[in-house]
């Protein structure tokens, strides 16, 4: 049995750092989406998301990131994803996700992207 998706949010200056662990499938998204949204959208924080421990992403996971990116953009903030595993990165490539939001290699680059 897979462990439920976990979310951890920390704040530094004007950037929210979100760490996800587990599978971003429909039950996983149901579990974390409200908390994720509440943590970053109302204050319009630039947000970097650590995907290094996300083993799988389904269409509902893509939908969550796209919805968050659009909501943050309305508040003049950015969502940047970083360190996707190869299987997740393959899905990002298929759906041309990099045309929609930045996806970078590591946290330092993500923070740079979010700040510019």
């Amino acid at each position: 049995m897979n462990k439920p998706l976990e979310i951890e949010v920390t704040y530094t200056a004007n950037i929210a750092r979100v760490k996800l662990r587990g599978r971003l499938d429909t039950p996983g998204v149901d579990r974390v989406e409200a908390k994720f949204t509440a943590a970053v959208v109302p204050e319009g924080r630039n947000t970097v998301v650590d995907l290094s421990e996300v083993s799988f992403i389904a269409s509902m996971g893509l939908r969550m990131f796209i919805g968050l990116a659009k909501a943050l953009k309305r508040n003049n903030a950015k969502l940047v994803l970083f360190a996707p595993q190869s299987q997740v990165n393959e899905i990002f490539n298929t759906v041309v996700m990099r045309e929609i939001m930045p996806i970078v290699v590591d946290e330092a680059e993500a923070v740079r992207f979010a700040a510019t």
Partner: protein
Amino acid sequence: MEQPEDHGDRTTIYRREDTLPEGAQEEFGHYMVVIGGAGLGRRLRLDSEPITIGRDPSCELALSSPDVSRRHCRLQLVAGEVFVTDLRSTNGTYVDGKRIEDSTLLPDGSILEIGQQVLKHERRSTREIKEAQDLDRDLEKARNYVLSLLPSPIVTGTVQAEWFIVPSAKVGGDAFGYGALDNDRFAIYLIDVSGHGVGAAMLSVSILNVLRQLALPGTDFGRPGDVLTRLNQMFQMEHHNGMFFTIWYGVYNRLEHMMVYSSGGHHPAFLVSADRKQLSPLATKGPLIGVMDEAPFPEAQVRVQPGTSLHIFSDGVFEIGDKQGRQLGLSDFLPLLNQPAVEGRSEPQRLYQTVRNTARPGPLDDDFSYLVIKFA
């Protein structure tokens, strides 16, 4: 307060009673619901008499599957609880993924697996059961409507088509179609709406009807890039409850034996050579449909050799968890396309059965939709 003018028309809304009369006791029962395998949705009530499950026709629940033993297991109510006992079956009886040895409690909500057959134990009141049955009937109608929109297989001619679809829920977000645009050109497409269930199905039906009726004003349906650009404008996610979709769209020219195609966020379709040794991926770099206001949808084209088959499928075909708990992907699935045909089964059915045998028990995680076009 001034009363509105009475024109004589009245609408009265009656609220259905959802509470029992005071003092009345709801009757609860134990039910086994088929959630995977043959007889999906079938509901069996457990009473004081034990129920034996097996391949033997004398069993109270007889299953014809070869991986079920003649007398496989027995369910029995004891002091208001359900217990399952394995009857020395060959392939075992599993409760919540664990093979049982002795008589084992089957808690409310637990999953019983017998070969490919998956049943869920539910303790429900008769009222809840009736509501569930009403909902099931409505979903069945919705499912039949979606299926009625899919094209018939084509078994003769220079372009033939066969398909197989299994939604992961009662209705799903996948749909596909094909048909002649004129004497020379034949259009083929498959769409996969984000998520699954009724919401996704409603959007997939909208898109499917647009494509079936060629109802995109000013669009050349022989140009996949134009079609995807127009769909992207028409189905922006902000106006469709936050849903988007992927699509693969191709047009085959029978005279020139050429296929022009474009994809929007969809993994490649594959051309499979007549000897099944060569797989050619067909994909372009178009984004998900409905996400970006303006997006390019490039086209590509390929020569189609006689005897070749085009395989178009949804990601639910290969994004599956296997029996060992591993997450499989496209690269795990593709070698199956090289394997020989199975007599008596269509190619999509052969692939479904192979995927089904690989996947962990229970419904697949996502809709399984598979379309094969054969070019004579």
